[in-house]
């Protein structure tokens, strides 16, 4: 009698899938699994694309602005500051963000199968 206990909802609602559906043959389980994969791929690209953008831009920037090598930050040459130190904190932030987001996607997916 899943799904039928809330007032106002149809007694024949099949909106809560069971874990068995995931393993059953047929399009329904496959769609569920693929939706999870797509969501996780989105999370992965969500951190990889910003990282790629930075990494691809910086070398080009140095070609477009040849005087970049003369810039100093608090006495330290900019290129040393960026490639030696500055690039790492964003990397760590992206890693932490990814772990949280991926866990959230999984929790939500698992919650789909919980009986209310």
């Amino acid at each position: 009698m899943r799904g039928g206990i809330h007032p106002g909802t149809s007694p024949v609602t099949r909106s809560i899938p069971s874990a068995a559906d995931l393993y059953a043959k047929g399009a329904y389980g496959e769609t569920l699994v693929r939706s999870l994969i797509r969501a996780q791929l989105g999370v992965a690209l969500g951190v990889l694309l910003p990282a790629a953008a930075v990494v691809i831009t910086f070398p080009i920037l140095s070609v477009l602005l040849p005087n970049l090598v003369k810039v100093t930050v608090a006495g330290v040459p900019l290129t040393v500051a960026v490639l030696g130190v500055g690039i790492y904190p964003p990397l760590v932030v992206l890693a932490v963000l990814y772990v949280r987001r991926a866990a959230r996607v999984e929790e939500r997916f698992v919650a789909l199968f919980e009986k209310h």
Partner: protein
Amino acid sequence: MTDTGAVVGVVAVSLATAVVGSRGLRVSRTRDDFLVAARQVPSGLNAAAISGEYLSAASFLGVAGLAMADGVGALWYAVGYAAGYLVLLAVVAAPLRRFGAYTIPDFAEGRLDSPMLRKVATGFVLVICGFYLLPQMEGAGVTLQVAFGGPYWVGVVVLGVVVTGAIASGGMKGITFVQSFEFWLKLVAIALPALALVAVFHHPSLDAVTGKAPAVFERATTVRFAEQTGIRVTVPVRVVIHGYVDGTAHDATPPASVELTPGVHHVGAGTSISFPAGSAAPTPTSGVLTNRQWLSPLLLLGGRSIHPLAATYGIILATFLGALGLPHILVRFYTNPDGQTARRTTAIVVMLLSCFYVWPALLALLGRIEAPGLYLSKATDTVVLVLPRLAVGGVGERILSALVAGGAFAAFLSTSSGLLIATAGALSHDILAGGVKAFRLSALGAGLVVTVAGLAVRGSSINVLVGWAFAVAASSFCPLLILGIWWSRLTRRGALAGLLLGGGSASGAVISAMAGAATTGWPAILVQVPAIWTVPLAFAAMIVVSLLTPRSLPSDVMGKLRALHLPEALRQPGLSDP
């Protein structure tokens, strides 16, 4: 010229490894114990162990040395070594752990039902481990050379014997603890000297890098010229010479000082020149970058500006995508209890590596300013080892020397033991089809081969050699893992085509580069930074051939995708795949 501090450091690290490694002997009996330490390692410890295993000679010595020689652009290697774990985290960490295969060949066979694919993958495990082990051996040779002043082969043989012995007797149970300890050792061993140097140098100014002043010998320094070198002197300086300068022999006893006048002088091979403290350092007439070149954020191959943008992107591709295809690293992910823990562990690894790589960058900068003699003796790869001696005296110098030599040796030990486990695992399981005895024999055999080969690679840049191992991994296992995990239409033939084309052409390019095939123009880029074409080639081949051969799709792709991606909570024993 034996450096007692360094000797103590190396001996202590070797003993610690042998002792802790042999403790594992009693508990490791089955293949599971040997290969994945029974899957019960907590996240923080595991992350330190992964980082400890990963930080190799390239990270500890190579990055600082290459950046000192070829400029700031070489720091892309370090950035890529760390960022590779972000890629690994986002695309393979959790799914691979959930899939439950031990090694990349296991994954290849399990995902695509192809014993043939397994054999090819095993072949590439051996190739990548081989390319990666050579620079570790070279690093050990160079380190002991600096420490003992003895011949190069001593370090290579010592490392070969210690590692092979530890692996053949202990397996990985002991090694997990050694590896995590070695991470912290390496971090302290590189950070402490760097901090001490910053504090100690009399002129902590960046003028020598920004071009306002010439580099100066901080202390009295004797430079030994390994080969014939032209040097440019800007300020006259009185020096003591042993050997030949400008065709004149200098070997007076007692040694008399000679004035080097401004201009270019030709120094003969084997000559040593002693410079007084505070004198301006001459620069070699060739092979040393101007400050402007040195500060460029683009990779200069061998210090030369050959299509630098392409070279930079090639190294970025190889290092960002290569980490996830390293055979010795993946096996560690099975020591995480579940997928989410695998993610947490990997994120901690990104953090730990980020804390590490700022130091080689700082040491490269300090080397550029404070160790101009290394440019003259062409020994920039030893900058991490030599810097403490240049600045600190007395007990402090000995402690720091012990620390860097110990840290360096820890780097060779941990990485080469991980690689040797992966090699011996692949050999014993996939080729000999044997158990623990075969594993031990394989470890002995592989250790012997690599030690001998290590004697032959003397003089190559450690970091460049490691970069090549990454290029092969990025062109073979990286596309296999990414497409295998995220793309349901990958077929057996597609995977095979991609592995063979991508990995094969990358290996070919690396071998040609080792043989010195192309050194100028685009051919140099194509063989020395092969990832720029072999990675796209591997992906393209896998995708196109897969689309053309839908009949070689493995059976039950959905079942495999479920195994890769479903969270543990949704796995039901009665329902899950067999």
